[in-house]
Every structure is written in C-alpha cells, then in structure tokens.
C-alpha cells in the first residue's frame, strides 16, 4: 500500500483542441485534506472528473489506490468509485427523493443491508451533518447550505476512503460556510479518509487544508502548506491569496484594442 491514495502523474487533458492541463503532477497522501485551488476555468473540477474516471487523460495517468483509472473497464471503474464520495457544487440531490431517501440511496443500491440497518445508518449520517430532524423534507424545501450538507451525508454514506468536494463553499452564507468547513475536517478525521477540496475560497480552504496545489495555465503554479503559500512571493499566488485586482491574472478577457473597437 503506497502512502498516496491518489496520484496524478504527468497528466495532460484538453477539450476541442484546447489543452487544459499540461503535464500536471500531484500526490494525495492518505488521511490528509488536500486543496486544489485556482481561478475559474483553470480545470480544477476536471481534475476531480479525471480522478473519478469520468474523463480520460490524453497523456499521463491517474492512479487511485495503485490502480490506473483510465485503464479500468466499467466494472473496474465502479469498484474504484465505491472507494470515493463526491460532493457536487450544487449538491446534485435526487429531486424526486426525500432527504432520507437521498442518503439511503447508495446503501440501497450498493449493499444488501436491511431497511432497519439502513435507517440507523441514515439517521447517524444525517445527525453528523446536523440534519437528522430534516429527514422527511424534500430537496426543494432545503436552503443551499442544507442541501450541501445532505449531499455531504450522502457522499459519506458508505464511509469512502476518498471524499472529493467540488466548490463546497460557493454561494453559502458565512454561517453555512463555517459549518461545512468544520464538517469537512471532522468527517475526514473521524472516517480516516483523504479529502480533496476544489475551491477558490482562500480563507476557508486554508483553514482546513494540510497541503494546497495552485493550478494556473494548465500547470501546478505553486504548492505547499497554507502557511507557506500565505508567505509566498510568487506574483500569481500573492495576487490570488490576497485577492488583488492587479497582477499576472488579467481582469479583462483577451480582446482587440479598446479605442479601435469603440471608434473604428
């Protein structure tokens, strides 16, 4: 058993001729909370999809628990996914199922547990995210933060080895953000899992991450502990961490000359 549960080795990937990743290398040690940060469109979520086997790299390999993801057949990929839980950006709860049934879904589909056992497990998972009392509600009756917590309970329903979070803090109020932040760290430690957080929220991510990768221009632009990165003098990292307008990341999308476009 290697010390890294996930390894991204020289991975390149692109859409329609545009190369999104150019030989990225990352390692995710067991039991740690690792963050992948970067601007919008830098390919952070795509990295999660590569780990989950929903996309295949054009070069390099992604290894999960020693197995090369894109070389697996459908059954092999499903075996690997049983070790993973993914929290989608907007929760992706099944809208025709109640909160209880959403959390019970992976248990009913992937295990032979009895309904009474499933009931106990669902209530335990919902209790862990503070929503045991909301088990009978439908997803449309939940706030954004509550939906995210139910999705988290569903993602950890089968106690996965790897928990992936796609923008877990996006669009949440400060209280919900703090709750999710605590939950990510405490669930990781309680389950002995490895957490991979994709985010651009610096404050919350730095609070709980053990190690951070910064992705920019298809490469790992910087990496280190949150403390190291806060002190970093690299222009990109400095601009990102401190939320500065001026820096190597331009505010404007590439366009022709402003004057000539206005006056012809």
């Amino acid at each position, binding site marked *: 058993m290697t010390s890294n549960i996930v390894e991204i080795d020289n991975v390149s990937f692109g859409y329609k001729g545009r190369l999104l990743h150019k030989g990225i290398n990352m390692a995710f040690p067991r039991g740690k909370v690792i963050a992948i940060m970067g601007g919008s469109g830098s390919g952070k979520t795509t990295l999660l999809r590569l780990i989950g086997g*929903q996309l295949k790299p054009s070069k390099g390999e992604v290894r999960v628990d020693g197995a090369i993801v894109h070389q697996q057949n459908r059954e092999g990929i499903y075996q690997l*996914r049983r070790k993973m839980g*993914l929290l*989608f*950006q907007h929760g992706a*709860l099944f*809208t025709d199922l109640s909160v209880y049934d959403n959390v019970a879904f*992976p248990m009913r*589909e*992937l295990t032979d547990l009895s309904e009474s056992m499933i009931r106990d497990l669902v209530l335990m998972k919902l209790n862990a995210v503070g929503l045991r009392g909301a088990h009978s509600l439908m997803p449309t009756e939940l706030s954004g933060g509550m939906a995210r917590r139910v999705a988290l309970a569903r993602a950890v329903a089968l106690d996965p080895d790897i928990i992936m979070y796609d923008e877990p803090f996006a669009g949440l109020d400060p209280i919900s953000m703090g709750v999710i932040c605590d939950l990510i760290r405490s669930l990781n430690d309680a389950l002995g899992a490895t957490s991979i957080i994709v985010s651009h929220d610096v404050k919350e991510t730095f609070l709980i991450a053990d190690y951070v990768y910064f992705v920019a221009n298809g490469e790992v632009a910087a990496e280190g502990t949150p403390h190291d990165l806060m002190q970093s003098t690299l222009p990109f990292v400095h601009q990102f961490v401190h939320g500065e307008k001026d820096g190597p990341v331009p505010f404007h999308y590439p366009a022709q000359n402003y004057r000539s476009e206005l006056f012809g």
Partner: protein
Amino acid sequence: MLGFLSELGQRMIARVWRLGAGAHLFFLTIIYSGESFRRFHLTLREIYFTGVMSLLIIIVSAFFVGMVLALQGYNTLQKYGSSEAIGVLVALALVRELGPVVTALLFAGRAGTAITAEIGLMKTTEQLSAMEMMAVNPIARVVAPRFWAGVIAMPILAALFSMVGVLGGYLVAVPLIGVDDGAFWSQMQANVDFRDDIVNGVIKSLVFGVACTMIALFEGFDAPPTAEGVSHATTRTVVISSLTVLGLDFVLTSFMLVV
C-alpha cells in the same frame, strides 16, 4: 455552392451520428435491463407515471374519436344502405389504426415529453453524474425501468383507447342515431378477426411503445445540460416520435397486409 454542400454534409453526419448514438443507447438499455425486472417496483413506479397518468387524456380522446368515427361513418354508410355496418367500421378503424397510432401520438406528447424533460433536467442538475460517481449505472437505474414501463404501458393504453372508442361510437350510433343495437354488436363480432385485426394492432402498439419511449429517453439523455437544451430536446421528442409513428405505421401496415 461548396459551402451549402459542406453544411448539408455536416448535417447528415450529425444525423447519422445521433442515429448511431440512439442505437447504442438502445442496446445498452437491453443489456442493462435485468435490474428493471429484478427490482420490478422501479418499473411499476414508471408504469404509474407514464401509463396511469396518461389515462385521462387517452380515455377522453378515445371517446371523442369514437363518436366522430360513428358520425362520419354513418353519414357515408347510409348512402349505400349499410348503416348497420357502422359497428364494424368503428371497431376496425380503432383496432387496426387509430387505437395504436393516436395512442402513440398522445403518449409522445404526454409521457414522452415528461420523460425527456425529467432525464434532461437530471443531467442538467448533475443527478446522473452523481449516480455514476456512486457506481450506480444510470442506464440500469433510470433508463431501463422507464423503457420497459413505456413498452408495457403502450399496448394497454392502446387497448383501452380502442375499447373506449367503440363505446363512444356505440353511444352515437345506437342511442343517438338509432342504429339497431343487435346489428351494431353482431356485425362487429362477425367481422373483427382476432389474428388479423387485434393481434396486428397489439404488435403495432408494441413497436410504437419501443420507438416512442426510446426516442424520449435518448433525447433526454443527449440533451445539452442547459434550459434551452432541455426545451429543444422536449420539442424534438414530440416531432421525431410523431413522424416515426406515422412512418412505422405505414411500413407495418404494408407488411401486415402482404403477409
């Protein structure tokens, strides 16, 4: 000219690609159908949504279609002194053609669009991706139960359509117009053949069930994950299903008349 030909070629390639993708989904649906029968409650639930929820529109339409058939049929038949044959005309028209065809058209408009919109929205809100990431096959869990529900529901709905249509025709022909009650039913009994008329009608509705449900499922599965994408997919479901049903009806009728 070259640009026109190039665009025409690209459109043809896109159509052929979609046809291939549809066929691929169909084969995968058949392969992963075991779950739909092992856990039949999943299929039953979908039969309720596609079949039972379509009952009202099917019954009301059938009633009016039967009544109009009787009115129009009587108007023509009485000129030839054959008004007693009104029962046969209504029954044959419904069992052979109108039952399966109109049911399929209504099914495409009511249940087909609902299936496309539901699956399209599940894709848009990443519910299908979530299922995939949980190692649950969405084709086995979402597509196959809906497919078999459509295939099972369609012949039942078509049979109900024909029955209610005959009842509508009876109410117009006998109590309203005054055609002889016994002649209406006996002529129908004597001239409607089980093998040539009823079985052929059931075969048609089964084929339409496969086509309409598969088109609805594919359009939902293939819809771009945007509001506009789902809206276009829903429209395409109705248009393609309707044209497919009418085209298939001609092909099936030709074969049935020859064999």
